[in-house]
C-alpha cells in the first residue's frame, strides 16, 4: 500500500487555493520552520461566511494536502461550521494520514480557527 492515500497525493500535487489575500479579514499561522511544517491562512468573511480562503504552506506532502483540503472544506461555510471543523475531520476527508503525520502535519483546521479568531479580534476593535 502506498504511504499516502490517492486523495493526499492529489491535493499535494494539485493544491487548491494557494496564495495570499492582500486585504484579508483574518490571518492565522501555525507550525514552525524548525519542526518542518508551517501554514499561513488568509480569509475573507462576508455575511458570517468564508467568502474566500487562501494559504501558503511550508512542509511535507501531508501538510500541503491538509492545507488544500481544509481550504476546500471551509470555502462558503459559516464561521460556526468552520470552527466546528477538526483536524481529524480533515484527515478523514483525505482518506486518512499515516499515523506519524497525524500530529505534526495535520494543523489545517487549527490554522483556520486562528484566522477566524484574528478576524473576530479585528471586528471587536
Amino acid at each position: 500500500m502506498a504511504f499516502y492515500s490517492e486523495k493526499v497525493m492529489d491535493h499535494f500535487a494539485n493544491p487548491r487555493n494557494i496564495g495570499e489575500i492582500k486585504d484579508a479579514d483574518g490571518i492565522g499561522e501555525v507550525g514552525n520552520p524548525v519542526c518542518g511544517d508551517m501554514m499561513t491562512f488568509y480569509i475573507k468573511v462576508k455575511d458570517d461566511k468564508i467568502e474566500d480562503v487562501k494559504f501558503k504552506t511550508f512542509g511535507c506532502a501531508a501538510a500541503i494536502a491538509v492545507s488544500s483540503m481544509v481550504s476546500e472544506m471551509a470555502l462558503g461555510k459559516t464561521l460556526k461550521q468552520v470552527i466546528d471543523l477538526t483536524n481529524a475531520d480533515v484527515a478523514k476527508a483525505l482518506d486518512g494520514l499515516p499515523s506519524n503525520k497525524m500530529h505534526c502535519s495535520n494543523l489545517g483546521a487549527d490554522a483556520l480557527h486562528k484566522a477566524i479568531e484574528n478576524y473576530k479580534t479585528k471586528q471587536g476593535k
Partner: protein
Amino acid sequence: MNQIYLDNQSNTKLDERVFDAMKPFFLEYYGNPQSIYSLGSVSKDALETARRQVAALINADPKEIIFTSCGTESNNLAIKGIADALKAKGKHIIVSEIEHFSILNSVKRLQKEGFEVTYLSVDAKGNVSEKELKKHLRKDTILVSVQYTNPEVGTIQDIKELVLTVKNSHVNDFIVFHTDAVSACGVIPVDVKDLSVDALTVSASVMYGPKGVAALYIKKDVKISSQIEGGVQENSKRSGTENLPAVVGFGKTCEIAKEEITKNSEHIRALRDKLITELPKKIEYIYLNGAMGKNRLPGNVNFSIEFVEGEALFLLLDAKGIMAASGSACANKNLRISHVLEALHVDVAVGQGSILFTLSKFNTEEDIDYVLEEFPGIVKRLRDMSPLYSYFIKTGERKPAGQGTDYDGHDHCHCAT
C-alpha cells in the same frame, strides 16, 4: 516515463553478472555447505570462493571474514561481540555521533547493560578529530567504532590517522578499532591492512550485490563472542545455514568491484561534480552538506534547499521519475531531522529542505541533465507556496523560529490540543 534511481545509499540495483552467478545456487546446487556428500561439497567450494573474493576486495585473509545477513547484523556482531569478549578488561566504548543506527542502537543497549559510551562530535564537514578521540581514550576503553564513510553527507573519515591515534596513545594494549565501511566498499579502495583496523563491516546490497548478505572482517586473534548461537557455520562465530545464493552473489560483486572500482568511481565522481556545480547556478539559497572534493564519497550529493521541505521535494521528483532521499524531519519516521545533519550543526530549519542524491555506476550524464532540468522547477513550485519564502522575499529576512526551537518543544509547536 524516465526512471532515474538516485538513492543508491539505501540500495543498489543488482549487477546482472552477479544475478547470473547466483542463479545455479537456487535450483541446481542447493546442497548445504556443511554436508559432506558431493552436492554439499559444491556448495562448500562456492562458499569458500566467495570468502576469498570478499577478502580480496579489502585485502584481508579469507579466514578473517564472517558472513552475516546484512550490514546491520555485522555492526551488531562487531559492537556486542567485541564488547562481550573484552568486558573483563573494561567497559568503555567510543563511537562517533554520525554512525548508522545499527551502531548507535547497539551501544545504547550496552549502556543499559552497564557499559559507558562516549559519542565523538564531528566538525561541520563531518570529520572526527584525532584530538577529540585522544581526549576520550581511557585505560578501560575496549572498543572504538568510527564509520569509514558516511552515506548521507559523503564524508570520508581519515580512519588510518584515527587508528594511529589509538595505537600511539598507549592507554592500554587491547582497544579494538572497528569501522563501518558499508558505504565505502566497492566505491573507494578499502584495505584493512593499510587502515590497520581490527574489524570492518562490508555489505553487498549497496555495491550492486544482493540483499540479505554482508560480512564482518575480524582480524586474526581479535576476540569476539558470537551473537547467534547454533552450529559450526562461520567458525561458530555466526551460526545458521548459509544463504548461499546471496553469498555467491556477494563474492561475485566483490570480484567485479575490485576490477572496476577505478573506472566506476571516476564516472560517478564526474556526474556528482556536475550536479554539485550546476545546481547552485540554477537554484538560489542552496547549501552543500558534508565534505568537499576528495574527502567526499564519489556518488554523494546532499544539498539543503532553503524555504522548502525535503519530503515534498522528493515526492515531486518521484512524480518526474527521479528517486532521491531527504534527511528532513518529515522524511524520518521519528520526525526529527537526521541525526547526521544535526551532528554537522546544519541549521534545523534549513536542514528540513535537505535532498540527497546518491549515484551509481548505472547512472548516465543524461540522468544528471534531466535532474538539472526538472529540479529547479520543483523547488520554485514549492517556494511559491512557502510562507517562509514569501516572508523572505518581502522583508529580506528569515522568519524567526517561534515556539519549539528545539525538539523538546516539538510537541508544543505542533499539537494545538
